[in-house]
């Protein structure tokens, strides 16, 4: 789909059949990816899915066991990191603690033997870009996390890279600052029109910033597409579950535009499946309408209600499957309610190895969600030690 025909022209980086393993463990397997010049592309996945490894291969810090890295039409496998036209924003910024803000930003410029006057101009320009005017002589250790982040961005952009690699750059910032920086990074990218390759495990971040999202799991690309595409038309149960909340049910495609699940045949907009083919059905919690039990297509009992501000998040047990529904209508625990689903809110996916693993909210609780987040952070640190 990507990297074929017309698009080939403005592809800046393409990875061809990249494989790599550490200590006998396969991290990436025959991975192919084309990145267009000037796009904001996000590699999204849980820790250990190989996204950081891809970044390090592009940067030149890792050499793939097999496969080619093509930059601007030329294989750069043998080009060392210091000669590639890509720069990295590291997870914890990696600012030089022995240099002040000015010298950190000037570091790459000094290596290029630029004149002092030009360096001064460039550093001033960069400080203006990241909104840090007047910070020239501050020590980097006296800066807050957000300010250090800005210095890291200025330092990388000062050397005019063609591609900027960002490895979970906002991971260490608090939520508010993170939102601000997301908007700022996006606007910097739009102004400079250079390619950003962004790595994150935060799906919201990916959805709000990217032109293209690459969803990854177990060293393989699960889905490449625009944020809208990935949210509305996930390729498999993994993608549907990873991006946003999803109810994923086992269904049977009765014929074109007719799918059966939860003991009811629904109208849908999908076709092209075999008759009676087993499929995964995805329904987003916000796409379900609730009504009186007798008016609903199917009905069940409310088992939990949580007020979320804008809406209620309720869990409904329908024939043993726990649905998550986001609605502005209040129902109490124990109420019998019916649900309605419009045909275009039903998304049908082919069965995959991820079928049956995700999409049931029977063990769901906010606490569980929190615990699994904590694990992710822990694993993250481990991953860093490994690579």
């Amino acid at each position, binding site marked *: 789909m990507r990297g074929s025909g017309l698009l080939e022209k403005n592809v800046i980086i393409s990875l061809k059949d990249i494989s790599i393993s550490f200590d006998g463990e396969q991290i990436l397997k025959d991975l192919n990816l084309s990145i267009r010049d000037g796009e904001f592309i996000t590699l999204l996945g849980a820790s250990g899915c190989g996204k950081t490894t891809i970044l390090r291969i592009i*940067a*030149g*810090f890792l050499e793939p066991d097999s496969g080619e890295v093509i930059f601007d039409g030329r294989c750069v496998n043998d080009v*060392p*990191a*210091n*000669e590639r036209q890509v*720069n*990295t924003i*590291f*997870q*914890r910024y*990696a*600012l*030089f*603690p*022995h240099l002040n803000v000015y010298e950190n930003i000037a*570091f*790459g410029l000094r*290596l*290029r033997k630029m004149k002092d006057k030009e360096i001064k101009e460039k550093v001033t320009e960069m400080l203006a870009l990241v909104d840090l005017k007047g910070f020239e002589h501050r020590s980097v250790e006296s800066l807050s996390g957000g300010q250090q982040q800005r210095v890291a961005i200025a*330092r*990388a952009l000062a*050397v005019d890279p063609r591609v900027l690699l960002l490895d979970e750059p906002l991971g260490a910032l608090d939520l508010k600052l993170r939102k601000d920086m997301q908007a700022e990074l996006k606007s910097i990218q739009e102004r400079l029109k250079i390619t950003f390759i962004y790595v994150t495990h935060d799906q919201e971040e990916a959805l709000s910033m990217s032109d293209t999202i690459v969803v990854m799991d177990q060293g393989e690309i699960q889905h490449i597409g625009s944020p809208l595409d990935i949210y509305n038309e996930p390729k498999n149960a993994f993608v549907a579950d990873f991006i946003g909340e999803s109810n994923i049910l086992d269904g049977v495609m009765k014929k074109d535009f007719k799918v059966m699940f939860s003991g009811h045949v629904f109208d849908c907009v999908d076709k092209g499946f075999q008759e009676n083919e087993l499929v995964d059905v995805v329904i987003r919690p916000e796409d379900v309408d609730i009504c009186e039990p007798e008016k609903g297509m199917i009905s069940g009992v409310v088992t939990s209600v949580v007020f979320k501000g804008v809406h209620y998040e309720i869990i409904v047990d329908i024939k043993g499957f726990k649905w998550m529904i986001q609605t502005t209508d209040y129902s109490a625990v124990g109420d019998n309610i019916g649900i309605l689903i419009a045909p275009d809110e039903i998304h049908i996916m082919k069965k995959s190895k991820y079928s049956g693993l995700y999409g049931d909210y029977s063990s769901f609780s906010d606490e569980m969600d929190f615990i699994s987040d904590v694990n992710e952070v822990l694993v993250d640190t481990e991953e860093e030690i490994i690579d």
Partner: protein
Amino acid sequence: MKNRTYNTISSPYALWCAIFIVAPLVIVAFYALTDKTGNFTFENIKHLSMYTDTIARSIYFGIIATVVCLLISYPLAYIFSKTKVSTQTILVMLVMVPMWMNFLLRTYAIMVLFEDTGIINNFLQKIGLSPIHMINTAGAVIFGMVYNYLPFMILPLYTSMTKLDNKLIEAAYDLGATGFQTLRDVMIPLTKSGIVTGITMVFVPSVSTFYISQKLGGGKYTLIGDVIEMQFQTAYNYNLGAAISLLLMVLILVCIAVMNKFEDTEERGMLV
């Protein structure tokens, strides 16, 4: 209240310092500035000019030994810090093991190796090469210093290398630095405290060492430490010996002060 507790706890150390650090210094200074009958005199200090050559040679040998130690240890410490943690423990152990052996014994062993009919020359002759004259040369003395004091350079360097974030080295590469530029602009500045500590810990004992030059230099390269030993052990001139010690101490203090200038605001090294 707080202050009193502090004083109570620190009093044994204050006592220790008084008895074993301050008192000996005062005694050395006293001997250096008196004659055999205990009268005040500058005679001993004037005598020091006799030892200008010895002092110059001690400093010269000390500098060479320190530089050689630094050149060997810096890459070695870096390699150590890049291995697996379990391997690091073993490597550090291997560095320490020779230090468990007595200093005199180690030096004596080098002598056995280096002699004209020693182990190395025997081996060279066996494989048909001509023997090399090694014992009783300046090189042998410096080798002895390097061999004995190398661990004092490796350990502080290794410690500062382990604190060096690998991401900083990657960041330097990423910004276009070559290997040499990364070393010069990132690694050396960030391991400065280890370098300063290592230099101090090798230079000070090298300058003041004795026995090494007697055994490996064949008495041709008398060092200041040997002169001091001689004054106390054979000449029984405690006053002159103390004066030389005092001079050595001043020289070392000057060196440390100079080194500390380089270290400026960085965290202090282990020794000073």
